Structure formats: structure tokens, C-alpha cells
């Protein structure tokens, strides 16, 4: 199944392989498709919907759709740009994203997409939810109000083969991610740091680890998200 196949992204032809997703195939070829829930090598969630592309005219998520020979993909398009920006804005208003007071600021992927899409103000009204915080476990501080429910932690943070984070409830103001404090208290410092690093925003923090890089030296201070792929 390792035969090379040809796909077209925004009118340009690229070579890739069977079994890859559109997102990965694009990445290999220096094309950045924005995404928040995707983690390389981890089961696809397809839930942030930001990697929406048009495949043969239909909206599909690039992270979940495998490439096929001759596939025609539209990534760079005003309608998609508008849609992606709107989703980022939805996430900003649905949570409490006080960037100036957030430990993850400058390294936050949601914020970075806000920069990339030049979001000056979300078009939607702010909700200011109150979903609570959990600081009961030794190393982890979990702020649900910053969570964008990408499920990265749900899919990746394990202890003794068990999920440390899981979704809870559903709908409107009820949906949130719950941390298993008992299990979380067994996490090592390194594991807690890994959990913080997998979170694209500042919802999972390792205690005593904030504002680590000075302003100007943070991940997205100078270079837009995705430029590492595009400038390869």
C-alpha cells in the first residue's frame, strides 16, 4: 500500500502515499492546514472542525479524511478562511481566555490561530462561563473555563492504562472535561508536564510552571503558527 499517489491542493499537484490523511499529506508537502484537536500519531478526534477543507466540493476535515488518487482539495479559500476564523472566535467566546493572565500565552495554539487569522475581536458575544477549576492533584491545575474540548488530553494522558481525563455530561453549559484526581495524583512530574504540553491552550497546567519563556521568546511571538511547515 506504499504506492505513491498524486493529489491536488489549491491547484498544485503533490505526491503522497496511501493511508495518509489529507492533513499529514499536506504537511509533508509544506502545506499548512490549521487544526487544534489533531495530535500526530493519536486517534483522530475530528472535533475542532478547523481543518475543514473542500474535497471534490464537499466540506471534510483534513485530519480524518484519507487521501485518494487524484483527490482535489481546496485549502486556501475565502469561505474556508471565514469558517475557520469563525470557529476560532467561537472558542474564544465560549471560554474564559484572558490571554494577558494566562500562563500559556505566547505558546497557546488557539491564540496563535487568532493571530494567524488576524482576529481583532470575536464577532460573537462573550459567554464568561463558570465551569470551575480543579487543583486537587499534586502537579496539575485544571481550569475548565479555558478548555476548548479538543479531547487531546482525553485521548493521550494515561496512568496505569487508564484515562486521567474524560468528557463529562453533554450540551450547552454542561459539557466539560473531568480529571480523575485520584489517578492524577499518581502522575510523575514529567507526566504532568507532558499533560500540560499536550493541551493546546492553558486548561492543563503543571503547577509552579508558568510564564517560563519571556515575552519575545515564546513559540508564536515572532512566527505564525504553521510557518514551521510552510518554511520547511
Amino acid at each position, binding site marked *: 500500500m506504499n504506492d505513491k499517489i498524486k493529489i491536488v491542493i489549491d491547484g498544485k499537484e503533490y505526491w503522497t502515499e496511501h493511508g495518509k490523511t489529507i492533513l499529514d499529506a499536506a504537511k509533508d508537502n509544506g502545506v499548512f492546514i490549521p487544526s487544534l484537536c489533531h495530535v500526530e500519531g493519536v486517534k483522530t478526534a475530528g472535533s475542532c472542525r478547523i481543518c475543514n477543507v473542500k474535497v471534490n466540493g464537499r466540506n471534510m476535515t483534513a485530519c480524518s479524511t484519507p487521501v485518494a488518487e487524484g483527490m482535489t482539495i481546496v485549502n486556501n479559500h475565502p469561505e474556508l478562511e471565514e469558517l475557520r476564523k469563525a470557529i476560532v472566535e467561537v472558542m474564544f467566546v465560549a471560554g474564559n481566555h*484572558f490571554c494577558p493572565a494566562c500562563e500559556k500565552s505566547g505558546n497557546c495554539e488557539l491564540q496563535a490561530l487568532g493571530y494567524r487569522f488576524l482576529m*481583532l475581536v470575536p464577532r460573537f458575544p462573550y459567554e464568561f462561563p463558570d465551569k470551575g477549576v480543579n487543583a486537587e492533584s499534586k502537579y496539575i491545575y485544571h481550569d475548565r473555563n479555558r478548555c476548548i474540548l479538543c479531547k487531546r488530553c482525553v485521548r493521550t494522558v494515561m496512568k496505569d492504562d487508564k484515562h486521567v481525563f474524560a468528557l463529562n455530561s453533554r450540551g450547552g453549559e454542561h459539557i466539560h472535561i473531568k480529571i480523575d484526581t485520584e489517578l492524577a495524583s499518581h502522575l510523575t512530574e514529567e507526566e504532568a508536564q507532558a499533560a500540560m504540553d499536550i493541551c493546546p491552550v492553558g486548561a492543563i497546567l503543571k503547577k509552579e510552571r508558568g510564564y517560563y519563556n519571556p515575552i519575545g521568546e515564546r513559540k508564536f511571538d*515572532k512566527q505564525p503558527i504553521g510557518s514551521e511547515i510552510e518554511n520547511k
Partner: protein
Amino acid sequence: MSKPVLATTSLAGCFGCHMSFLDIDERILELIELVEFNKSPIDDIKTFTKQCDIGLIEGGCCNSENIHVLKDFRKNCKILVSVGECAIMGGLPALRNGIPVEECLREAYLDGPTVGLNTEKILPNDDELPMLLDKVYPCHEIVKIDYYLPGCPPTADLIWNALIALITGDELKLPYEVVKFD
């Protein structure tokens, strides 16, 4: 041709955006050639004396006075600009959103560690004082806002570029490093 008239104010903010404004350094001399200041802490004019062209708003609305001032700015300025995170989304003062007002007042004036000499445990209740709103509101939820300059504070370059663009009508250029939310 008369110079465009500029007004500025700080609502529920920390004056940091005004400080950043002053960070345009020597360009302020150039600015004075370009605009005339009206109501603003910069020249200390307290009330509008004429119709203005541009109003810069720092801070969101946390009390009834903020609302009055903001509405006054809307009435007196052709163009209103929300400057900084507080004006745009409430900013740090909005960290109290979601916490009941009673709890906030209690913590600030009665029970909190900074209560200090308020031994009689009095809540500010003079009729002359503005009233706290149920939450901190972004400015655009109160009046129509025409432009937004994010940042905490927005960089001096961003404020400068935006003002020049507004005054000259030139296209506003926003290099990547300039637009930040912190």
C-alpha cells in the same frame, strides 16, 4: 483644513494602554501636528467641548459611570476605537465575571486580606458613587465600536499605525509581531 479632533479615556482599565500610547516617544510631536486633542487624560480636558473625529477607549465597563462615559464618547465621536483587551473583552477586571457581585463586594470591602482599616465594615454606598455592574462588559456590547486594537497593552506601533491610518485614510498595515492579545 482643520486638524482631526481626538479624544481618549480609560474606563475599567489600568491606564496601561495610555502608557503604551505615550510609548510612541518622539512621534508624539508629529502627532500634535496632525491632530487636536479634546477630552483626554493627556491634556486633562474633562468634558467634551466640541464634536470629535476619533475616540480611543481603554478599558471595559464595570460600573455605571463607565457606561455614561462610553455613551458620551459615542455621542461625541465619529469613530470609536476599542483599545486593548479590557475594552475588547473585559480583560483582567472581567476575571470577576461569573462570581456573584455580593461575593466580590464582600471580598473587597469586608472579608478580604486588603480590607485594612475598614474596621466598621462599611460598603461604599454613597449616592454619588457609581454602581457596580453585574459583570464587566466589553465596550461593543454597550455601544457600536468601529475598530479594535488588541493587546495588553497594544504596542505603541500598533496604536501609532492605526491612528495614522485613520487620519490619513491609508490602508492599515498589521505586521505579525504587532497584533498580540497580551
